[in-house]
């Protein structure tokens, strides 16, 4: 009986080793929240993993750094071959756990944000300043076309700096830098809310405080949707620009209300797919780019064909 138990235990503990020996890479994909962006990055990873015959494990760290450490340690103990991860605190707290995993020979690929360390084999991300600039250029063109004679052009911004300050600030700066030098452009109000149900309240308050506002900008989907709906409720004709694209936002761009003018989106599917591709390449010993910036896509209601084309791909 004792021999049987020993053999059974040995078999159980040998299972992972046997499985790994089967020449199939195992890659862990780690995101920090369950939203559309993160979900789509995982879909990008999944598509490459299926194509390449890689075993993909996924986790969500639920915006908790302690859980991030726990998940990374668990995957390291399990002996995965690579980890593709977006960090909660890339500047400091996220480093030790992935460093320990890297020291065990696990390849680390960063996506969405960049770790303040040199050991990840690759980083795949968008540039939030460029995303903001994409919509900023559209706003600048709109201001020149519609407010050419105006002495003062009042702008309001809904950001989400209370949730993710560096990301939100980069998007805001990228937008603002494109329009700030146009004569008369003035930032009259700024509020923060990452979610639509709160952003709509703040945008409505801003419209009340500045009934003559000329333009609004939402730094993420929540701020953008909140701004568009607040403008719609007010009955005013205030143009809105923003960041992010989903089914609802594409609907705003196609709507006859003429409120949302343009929005720039990251390409989360491509970010996830490239992160997985680079993980596999590094495992195969192939060269990978140390840093890849995935460009954003700007859609404007001035280009309805592009909006219609994008609408076919958005869930």
């Amino acid at each position: 009986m004792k021999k049987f138990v020993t053999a059974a235990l040995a078999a159980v503990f040998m299972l992972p080793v046997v499985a790994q020996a089967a020449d199939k890479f195992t890659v862990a994909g780690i995101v920090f929240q369950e939203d559309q962006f993160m979900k789509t990055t995982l879909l990008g990873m999944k598509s490459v993993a299926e194509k390449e015959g890689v075993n993909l494990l996924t986790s969500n760290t639920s915006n908790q750094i302690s859980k991030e450490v726990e998940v990374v340690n668990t995957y390291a103990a399990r002996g995965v071959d690579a980890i593709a991860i977006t960090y909660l605190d890339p500047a400091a707290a996220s480093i030790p756990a992935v460093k320990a995993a890297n020291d065990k020979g696990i390849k680390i690929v960063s996506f969405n944000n960049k770790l303040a360390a040199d050991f990840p084999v690759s980083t795949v991300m968008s540039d939030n300043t460029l995303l903001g600039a994409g919509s900023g250029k559209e706003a600048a063109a709109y201001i020149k076309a519609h407010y050419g004679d105006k002495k003062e052009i009042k702008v309001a911004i809904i950001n989400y700096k209370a949730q993710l300050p560096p990301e939100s600030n980069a998007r805001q700066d990228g937008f603002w830098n494109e329009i700030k030098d146009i004569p008369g452009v003035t930032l009259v109000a700024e509020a923060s809310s990452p979610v639509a149900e709160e952003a709509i309240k703040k945008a409505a308050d801003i419209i009340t405080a500045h009934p003559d506002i000329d333009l609004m900008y939402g730094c993420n989907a929540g701020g953008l949707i909140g701004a568009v709906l607040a403008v719609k409720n007010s009955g005013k004709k205030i143009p809105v620009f923003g960041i992010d694209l989903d089914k609802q936002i594409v609907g705003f761009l196609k709507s006859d209300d003429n409120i949302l003018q343009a929005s720039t989106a990251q390409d989360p599917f491509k970010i996830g797919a490239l992160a997985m591709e680079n993980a596999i390449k590094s495992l195969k010993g192939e060269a990978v780019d140390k840093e890849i910036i995935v460009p954003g896509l700007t859609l404007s209601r001035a280009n309805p064909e592009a909006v219609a084309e994008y609408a076919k791909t958005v869930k």
Partner: protein
Amino acid sequence: MTTSDTTGKGKGSFAPLAATRRPFFKLSDFVLEAILLAIILLLAFTAPGFATWDNWMNILRNAAMTGIIAFGMTFVLILGEIDISVGSGLAFFGCLLAVVTDSMTTAGWSAEISIVIGVVLCFGIAILAGMFTGWVRHVLAVPTFITTLAWMAAFRGGAYLLTGSFPVTPYPDWFFFFGSGAIFGIPFQAFVFLLVFIITWFISRYTVFGKSAYAVGGNAESARLSGINVLGIRMAVMSMIGVFTVLSAIMVSSQIQAGNPTVGVTWEFTVITACVIGGVSLMGGKGRVWGTFVGVLFLSIMLNGMTLLNIDEYWQYVARALLILGAVLIYQVQAMNARRG
């Protein structure tokens, strides 16, 4: 939890139901209202657009969605219980309604029938969940904090599972009336908010059910010995907050024109904050629906005023913290004075 006090201000042990009616007007009960009035006057002179009809309608619209749930939470807290699942419930019921509508309209049903069935389903689940929470609290002595903690995770997970993390947008234009429509220039949500306030205020002051909730919150065993159906009260109150959460979820979904699994994060704290500012005790047995009404307006007016004044978001957090602390200190001083006679 040894007191039962419908005034939310007094002291003493569980008293007979007939003796719990409070004096109609007592000046010291209205300190918070006086502070709120002072803030309103200050904002009227300093915040651009504050003293306008449109802005007051904004304030009512903004207060409505959390306020409706806060009235339910008032009863839960009076009972000596808590419900921390309301934010997740808001997301779950909004997503459930959207997914049911989406699935049924795709299958060829009319939007009207689909939405009605979705709404009935949401109310049904909310009521059953509340009854279950009240039942396990009473029969198995499981604290409502624990049960609603489980509901919180289940509802949020359910919302993500239902939608696959993507916003669902199946609604016809008429549905948006519930979130952004107005009657005689007054937002629809404001009517629901005021209606729910009047109903819950009446229940708390003039019905056996309301008095029983105070009695159970003050001392459940004494309440049971005096013939109150404690199990029934607990199940009914926990179901009532579920019903109000569904009402709010319908209006939020209508307002943002989608079922979105990320809505309602930390709403439970906003709702509890409004109750606490309004003088509802987390220890049970004390609190007034009117106090919660003022607390909800207080929060909404403060946030509105700070946005109008373009005050940085980080300072808004600090202001909210000071508000909670200030309100609690006022009630504590009042309670100490009352004890001294």
